[in-house]
């Protein structure tokens, strides 16, 4: 069964005009925002395929900007998100990407936060507002954003995944999906674990202390997003 429940048929609640070109694009932006962990100071957005051909008519650009600001698919401010991002101090540029792309609806996001943290992400919008992230900082990955995802950067050494899965088991969390990718043997590697429940902060701390783990990132698009509202109201207050 591709469609699991009633709200995959009636829903999502969204700002138009397209579930793939608008709602999906906003979710990719939001996923990137969550991975970066802050509002990007600079954002280079490259559209490919159908996204490149129709992004202005579909508002794909403003949808991505809204996602980067932390907006959900039905945020009424989504149509003005490009202006709001600029007001919030984001240096935002859009262009048509060059080269190969994995899906007709593909976007690359190259982001940098104020503290220097960088993120390069390739996302695809596969229909009905559903998305798939296919590359993170050069690592080939494959995860949707329908459930929370834990990204674990580590050294490619024996036992890292055993330690990770043991920590998840102790926390009572079921693994819905698991993928691994490495730059080179014994080099830097990335594990992406999709979870059937929310990961607590204490679990993330525990994973970060495991041997050979370099860091963790966590994406939960269904979680609360109070941080965005704060930043936007700060920006509005600064005017």
């Amino acid at each position, binding site marked *: *069964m591709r469609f699991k*429940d009633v709200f*995959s*048929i*009636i829903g999502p*609640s969204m700002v*138009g*005009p397209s*579930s793939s070109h608008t709602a999906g694009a906003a979710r990719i932006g939001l996923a990137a925002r969550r991975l970066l962990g802050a509002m990007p100071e600079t954002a280079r957005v490259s559209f490919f395929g159908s996204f490149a051909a129709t992004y202005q008519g579909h508002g794909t650009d403003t949808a991505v900007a809204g996602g980067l600001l932390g907006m959900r698919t039905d945020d009424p401010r*989504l149509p003005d998100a490009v202006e709001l991002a600029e007001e919030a101090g984001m240096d935002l540029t859009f262009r048509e990407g060059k080269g190969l792309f994995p899906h007709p609806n593909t976007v690359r996001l190259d982001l940098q936060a104020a503290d220097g943290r960088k993120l390069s992400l390739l996302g695809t919008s596969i229909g009905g507002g559903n998305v798939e992230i296919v590359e993170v900082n050069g690592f080939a990955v494959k995860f949707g954003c329908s459930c929370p995802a834990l990204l674990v950067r580590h050294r490619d050494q024996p036992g890292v995944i055993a330690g990770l899965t043991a920590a998840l088991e102790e926390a009572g969390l079921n693994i819905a999906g698991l993928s691994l990718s490495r730059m080179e043997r014994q080099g830097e590697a990335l594990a992406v674990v999709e979870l059937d429940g929310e990961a607590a902060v204490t679990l993330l701390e525990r994973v970060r202390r495991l041997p050979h783990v370099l860091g963790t990132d966590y994406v939960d698009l269904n979680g609360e997003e109070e941080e965005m509202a704060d930043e936007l109201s700060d920006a509005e207050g600064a005017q």
Partner: protein
Amino acid sequence: MNFRTLKELSERCRESGLSIGRLMLQQQAKESGREEAAEFATMKEYYGIMKDAVHNGLTRDTTSRSGLTGLDAQRVAAYNESSEPSLGGDAGRAMAYALAVSEVNASMGRIVATPTAGSCGIIPGVFVSSQERFGWDDDIMTEALFAAGAIGYVIANNSFVSGAEGGCQAEVGSAIGMAAGALAELRGGTPEQAVHAVGLALKNTLGLICDPVGGLVEIPCIVRNGFGAVTALAAADMALAGVRSVIPSDEVVQVMLEVGAAMPEKHRETAGGGLAQTPTGKKLMEDLRKKKRR
């Protein structure tokens, strides 16, 4: 879910004595692990968004970003008031409301995908106009949304609900079937009659291609939503009158799958054929490109 086909859906209803809407609510709560009341509240909120979208489409400037569409719902509504519409007032209202929601969608307003953004006008058009006409409260309408969702769930899992996969029949066609079945139940029809309404409606859109001008959810998507609402009313009436879908509705869903799978790629949401590639369609697309470069 304890059903995979429309036949199983009506059988589960008969066994349990539940309406299609109630059965779907029960099954949804089981699937999500949440309380029925919580699921119901979410759906009721969605119905509120649909009603707001109807209102916004009838009162606000709905000119799309491309400038190609907008305000047709208000034209139809004004005509309904000032003239003697051929359809009659109630069907005309359903049509105007469906256009309104689709135009809100095209102008980046808030809608609920039912089942997609491209087909988001049909269910609100039928539901909101019928609610006004028959005086049903929001709880009744919310239950009917679960019924529409149950029908869409069967269609989506046995065929498809996206234009890129199966053409417009999969989006607008599915939405009409969902609205028709739900309305038949709202009007007191049995689950069997509701399922017949789905089959009758789907047969009328088999083969419909997805050919949006410039790839935008505007031409012809918006008017197809208007027509779709009227067709849903007609299918519900036929089923309530005792007309049966001689080819069982589940078999009609399979035909939609067969036809969609055979549909050329240029007729599946790529703007590579159909209305998008007419001389005028190509010119509009070219004008949009020039506008973009400036």
